[in-house]
């Protein structure tokens, strides 16, 4: 009984445990297609602050000028909160640019790497290490 104080919270600093199994909640390659990178731009319509992954919805205007409704997967709410990103960081109406990869079901869903705000500020969406391609979006990516 002498070792721990009751309710002792122990945080384990993620010493990046990369292996064949470091796949995130789900394997990136099971859900998304690394051969379909995309850039989406438009106003945020909804933010789903949910487990196991957050989803940001936006209205993208394609090359033909048509409006498309997309949803983009981000990191877990827990992880984003610890990085200072919360449900109110990106309000509906905010114009964002999303750098990501389309889902393998070819629907208007994507995995997000980065979000860029109008002022150039970048929010990292937390998909690194899930098997997403090492594309330079994450400077610590390997």
């Amino acid at each position, binding site marked *: *009984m*002498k*070792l*721990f104080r*009751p*309710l*002792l*919270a*122990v*945080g*384990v*600093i*993620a*010493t*990046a*445990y990369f*292996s*064949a*199994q*470091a*796949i*995130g*909640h*789900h*394997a990136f*390659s*099971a*859900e998304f*297609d*690394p*051969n379909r990178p995309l850039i989406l731009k438009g106003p945020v319509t909804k933010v*789903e602050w*949910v*487990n*196991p*992954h957050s*989803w940001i919805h936006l209205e993208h205007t394609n090359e033909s000028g048509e409006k498309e409704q997309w949803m983009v*997967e981000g*990191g*877990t*709410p*827990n*992880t984003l*909160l*610890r990085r200072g990103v919360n449900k109110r960081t990106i309000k509906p109406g905010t114009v964002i640019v999303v750098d990501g990869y389309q*889902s*393998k*079901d*070819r*629907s208007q*869903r994507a995995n997000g790497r980065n979000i860029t705000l109008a002022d150039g500020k970048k929010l990292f969406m*937390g998909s*690194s*290490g*899930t*098997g997403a391609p090492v594309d330079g979006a994450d400077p610590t990516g390997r």
Partner: protein
Amino acid sequence: MRLAKRYANYGKVAAANDRAWWLEEGEDVEGPYDDPEVRTTSDRCLQGFGSTGGPPMLPTLYNNVKRIVQTPDHILILIEMVHDSRIVRMNSEHISPDIRKWMGDSIGHWEGDTLVIDTTNFNDTPGLYNATRDLHVVERFTRTEDALHYSFTVEDPNTWTEPWSGNYNWPRSEETVYEYACHEANYAMGNILRGARILEAEYREKAAADKE
């Protein structure tokens, strides 16, 4: 067998993402995306990935915070990832080997200032990569100035020729432990299965065209 096959497919999935390679062996062979139950337990939100809840409890990409609660008879270790809780019975015996659990059956005792936890009775899918139901894990927790020193030894004759060990520090933290209710909106499962159906349709179409 089902499990072994699933993991054997991982490398292929990453290498060939653009076609339904699992149909190459025939339509009757079980594929890695046939139904939700052949997906990994982390895809299914049943367990965290990378043995985060273990045992042994390994550091993974995120949500590594733990909370430990003690009573005289039990120790609870709450693992943030997939909000798993391990409940360790102190100075007890293992339950019948007929009863199998996702995180095994854990009993504990003190050796001086070190807490020792012994875990057996796993089901067929322990959190530890490649482990089987015969996994046996012994964990040791020793308080240091600013951390818990965690060490473990793993045995599983079905997978490893001899026991192996690891250790790392769990730094003390004032972090809030958040809930991680993985099932809340697991859109990934639907996306994964729909994607596989599309690749399969394309594969069959191409196979039919090649025949003509």
